[in-house]
């Protein structure tokens, strides 16, 4: 499981957690999120995310 970061607001999408509020189940790989998904914090589009390593 990997993490991705929103370059606009810095939010982390953690594949292990998903984004249940937007119907993205825990364990969903970033690639498998629909293209019209948005950052739950700021509303940036999916292409604003980058791989994130701590």
């Amino acid at each position: 499981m990997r993490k991705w970061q929103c370059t606009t607001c810095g939010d982390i999408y953690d594949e292990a957690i998903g984004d249940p509020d937007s119907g993205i189940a825990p364990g969903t790989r970033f690639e498998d999120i629909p293209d019209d998904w948005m950052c739950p914090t700021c509303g940036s589009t999916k292409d604003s995310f980058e791989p994130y390593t701590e």
Partner: protein
Amino acid sequence: MSETPIAKPHVLVIGAGHAGGALVGQLRQFGFAGRITLVGDEPHTPYHRPPLSKAWLKGETTTEKLALKPGSFYEEQHIGLRLGERVQAIEPDAHRVRFDDGTTLDYDWLVLATGARARQLPIPGVGHSNVLSLRNLADAERLRNALKVDRKVVIIGGGYIGLECAATARALGAEVTVVEHAPRLLARVASASIATFLQSEHEAQGVQFRLNTGIDAIEGEHAATAVRLSDGTRLPCDLVILGVGAEPAAELALAAGLACDDGVTVDADCRSSHPDIFAIGDMAKRPIPIYGRPIRLESVPGAGEQARRVAAVLCGREPSAPEVPWFWSDQYDLKLQIVGLIDTDATSVVRGDPASRSFAVFHVKDTRVVCVEAINSPPAFMAGKKLAASGKPVTPSELADSSADLKTIAA
């Protein structure tokens, strides 16, 4: 980028904030092979400012995590960093800037990204040590040290920063009063429905409001002990937060003779009145096609879009279509996302029930969505972003009908 860049052309960026930070990364992403230097007077690499009033101030995230990019990024990308250094003057004809210590640096293209600074109030007592503004990490550190349980906090200004600080201060157990001289909150930047909704949410969390009220003075010998309001009331306090807006940091540009008018006047490509000097971010006033007039935005998405635009121009690439301005804020568990600017001539319709704490206000002008304010409602924001950009004709009634599918309406 593994090859060492050639020395020319040299892009010099002044201001290592959101706009400057986004620009240098974007230039390399677009394949810019020349030299890049990023100068900033703060001691930090570019960092996310929005959490300074929210998650960071609450102690939910660390300073390290605020960085836009890891520290190694700049070296890997051959981006020269000069942090903790301040540019003191620009010499446009010589293509050169002068630092505080008198040394100079030549450039081929100069990008100004010096942002904005917190506005001060011309009232007695604003200089007291416990009267704090919030623009950068140093301000935020002072504020965090001062925000404690049971402290009496008076926040001057009911805009986004004031309200975000109010929410954070309540979460930390402080007593909070917000004083606003306009008759309502967020007067310039949100609709009355959203302002009313947010006010009642803050009241439910224990925040007190004094609207329609000015400030006569901040009292106290060395430190603020009370705020005296225009109606004569005295609000005792341990801390005052000034959230009365920001002013563009345009003095370098002004002194260099660039055209300025509430920020540096730039064209759609963010080029100033001098062809080799660009300005981006909070300091730039730029024409926005859908509004047909120049507007100075103060937002992270705005800074990012302008940075991408300049990067495209400097790399000779076709720039992407202009974005409709958008913004977000969060207070308590409320996520507010706005696309478009408030237009008082538009008709507004509410979709969803504010009592459910998930709803949106659509603003429609001549069948076109010009603005959407969404509270805890990403689908409405997403549809609004599409509609505002496409201009697809809509009717207020279909937007108000919660059973009508938004994706279909926006498609």
